[in-house]
């Protein structure tokens, strides 16, 4: 996912722009920053880059790199009573509050001098904090921040002729950008905001050569090889849609500022380019799966604090609270009485839980679908029933819309292909998975829940080969199931465009908390509902 960050530079509570970092060279764009932000939000801007320019002017002592002055940071606390500075802080709080209320993400920088400041920003809802000078002036403090908040730290590197400068660009670090990045990567930094000083605020186009150089450095780095997510944010010089495009060809992200305020890129153009790069803001779904038998959840449940560990309503409420996006109930009851018990539980769940859920298991006829929908489920999953009678998909889709009809399919790899199994994965059908899914979609299935029998229960990760081939072939939403064992496994399927990840035991046994999973996915640039 490519990010277009809109810069809001604040000074004395106003939106301003400095040319090449000169405080004397200031243009005021707006006296009402919140309105500016609202306008960008309405165009679909998802990320903001806020700079507290009143913070950057503070002149802390440069500390020697030997760390003799650890922990005595009182002299550099820049939250003074100064009017201009407090005007800025009020505005910043306003922007953060608004941004949080509408679900956009914010990174903030400018004069960040210590751990406490970073902590405060993150506590009030900022997603990432940008740190510049401190990285060089007080490495010990910086490391403390990094070890606490690694993925939420963005290191700002301002570059002049290949050399990193600090203190509002006034002082050279005498470190080359390549050395700086290599060193910081080995410390565990994963986000870099790289600004070409010569280009900044000049509307002269971005320095693609610089970013290309950095990118090739990254490609050969150990950190990248070990699968870490590294983000380079290009900044300085964006003057047209083309320069946004060329920045995003090389980098993951780009900051756009002056060109928006000066109108070289207008709002509608911004909206269109955001759309072109982001396509959809649909979040990836995390789905716990509950196997229900005779109205009770049956397998792999290990809740520590719940006495009645197998009640579907209680478990649904629990997951509802914990951030699950959806629930899947698989009714594995064999008897009519058992099915009734499950349906009455489904009804109860529908009345208690405010998230969508899908019910499957033993669905054979339109009447089965109707029973489940009437009980309050959002969607119905059909597996073996569709294999023996594909028309049930058509009937269901006609009556309730294809978005209600989920094809559940259990597959096993067979050479280069995958074979469909029926009867809870026990009976090979001879059907080719791709051909079957294609047919099912043409019959009316609106979503695919695909379980890899090979991976199920292994916790070794989803079947990525299967899933990426499915993704390439089909446009309907795909829910991946079978093999989830860790956060990385979810990230992998989302990276290849799968819509949802389903798992049972890792959630039931609390090996992974959904909140934690989502936070980690977000830091890996996956869109999740938090």
């Amino acid at each position, binding site marked *: 996912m490519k990010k277009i960050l809109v810069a809001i530079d604040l000074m004395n509570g106003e939106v301003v722009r400095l040319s090449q970092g000169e405080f004397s060279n200031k243009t005021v764009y707006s006296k009402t920053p919140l309105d500016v932000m609202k306008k960008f939000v*309405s165009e679909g801007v998802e990320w903001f880059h806020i700079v507290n320019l009143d913070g950057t002017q503070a002149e802390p002592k440069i500390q020697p790199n030997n760390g003799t002055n650890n922990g005595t940071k009182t002299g550099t606390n820049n939250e003074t009573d100064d009017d201009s500075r407090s005007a800025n802080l009020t505005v910043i709080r306003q922007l953060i509050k608004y941004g949080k209320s509408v679900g956009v993400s914010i990174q903030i920088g400018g004069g960040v001098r210590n751990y406490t400041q970073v902590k405060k920003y993150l506590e009030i809802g900022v997603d990432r904090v940008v740190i510049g000078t401190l990285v060089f002036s007080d490495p010990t403090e910086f490391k403390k921040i990094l070890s606490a908040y690694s993925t939420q730290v963005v290191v700002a590197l301002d570059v002049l002729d290949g050399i990193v400068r600090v203190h509002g660009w006034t002082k050279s670090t005498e470190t080359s950008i390549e050395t700086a990045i290599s060193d910081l990567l080995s410390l565990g930094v994963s986000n870099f905001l790289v600004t070409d000083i010569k280009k900044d605020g000049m509307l002269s186009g971005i320095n693609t050569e610089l970013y290309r150089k950095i990118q090739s450095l990254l490609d050969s780095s150990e950190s990248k090889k070990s699968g870490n997510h590294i983000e380079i944010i290009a900044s300085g010089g964006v003057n047209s849609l083309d320069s946004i495009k060329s920045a995003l060809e090389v980098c993951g992200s780009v900051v756009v500022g002056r060109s928006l305020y000066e109108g070289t890129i207008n709002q509608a153009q911004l909206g269109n380019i955001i759309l072109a790069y982001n396509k959809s803001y649909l979040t990836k779904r995390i789905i716990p799966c509950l196997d229900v038998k005779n109205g009770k959840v049956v397998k792999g449940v290990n809740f520590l604090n719940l006495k009645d560990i197998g009640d579907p309503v209680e478990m649904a409420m629990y997951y509802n609270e914990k951030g699950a996006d959806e629930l899947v109930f698989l009714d594995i009851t064999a008897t009519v009485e058992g099915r009734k018990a499950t349906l009455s539980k489904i009804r109860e769940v529908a009345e208690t839980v405010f998230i969508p859920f899908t019910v499957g298991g033993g669905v054979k006829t339109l009447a089965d679908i109707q029973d489940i929908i009437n009980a309050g489920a959002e969607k119905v999953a059909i597996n073996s029933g569709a294999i023996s009678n594909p028309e049930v998909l058509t009937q269901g889709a006609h009556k309730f819309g294809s978005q209600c009809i989920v094809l559940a399919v259990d597959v096993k790899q067979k050479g280069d292909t995958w074979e469909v199994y029926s009867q809870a994965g026990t009976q090979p059908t001879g059907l080719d998975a791709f051909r079957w899914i294609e047919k099912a979609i043409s019959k009316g299935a609106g979503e695919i829940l695909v379980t890899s029998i090979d991976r199920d229960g292994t916790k070794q990760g989803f079947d990525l080969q299967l899933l990426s081939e499915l993704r390439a072939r089909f446009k309907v939403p795909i829910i991946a199931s079978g093999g989830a064992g860790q956060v990385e496994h979810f990230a992998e399927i989302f990276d290849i465009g799968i819509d949802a990840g389903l798992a049972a035991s890792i959630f039931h046994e609390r090996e992974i908390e959904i909140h934690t999973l989502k936070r980690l996915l977000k830091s890996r640039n996956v869109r999740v509902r938090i």
Partner: protein
Amino acid sequence: MIAIVNTGSGNLRSVQKALELFYPEIKIIDTPKSISSADGMVLPGVGSFGDAVDTLNEIDLFEEVKELGKSIPVLGICLGMQILFERSEESPDATGLGLLRGEVLKLHPLNDTNVPHTGWNRLIPQQKEQKIENLKYAYFNHSYYCHPEDENVIDYSVIHGGKYPAIIQKRNILATQFHPEKSRESGEQVLKYFVRSVRQ
């Protein structure tokens, strides 16, 4: 009394239950007589445009709903939002309620996005001051979208291959393309707002 109009296909109970949290009397209605005393009206939504309109006609509610919809607070949900418009690509022969000007179009799988649009998406405020605030994510599940003649009625949009209306407000009419009854906090805000307008 808030009337949930039974447009034929399923899942009215969760809408009813969700509204009951904020309002004492919520009835599922399928006859003209029982709707006349309603203080507010909900058009729920699963199914197709044509089926929903046909059902309204079959149970003799089409004209009633259209008439009441000019005065009392109305909440249209998903398909219930769509039938408030004049027509739909989904069922070209069917006539919608026409309480909102415009049409309903098919979502195309543009830009590699998938159709139906299923899942949680972020609501994007379109007005400087929102009538309903603090909405973030909502649960969508649809293959068609509303295209109002007047863009100013769009309160929130959603991005999925294009930018589409998520919440529309015009006078007494509130309509959501998503399912408030499945959208946790955001859904609660919408339902509360609707109930407040019924009480006023």
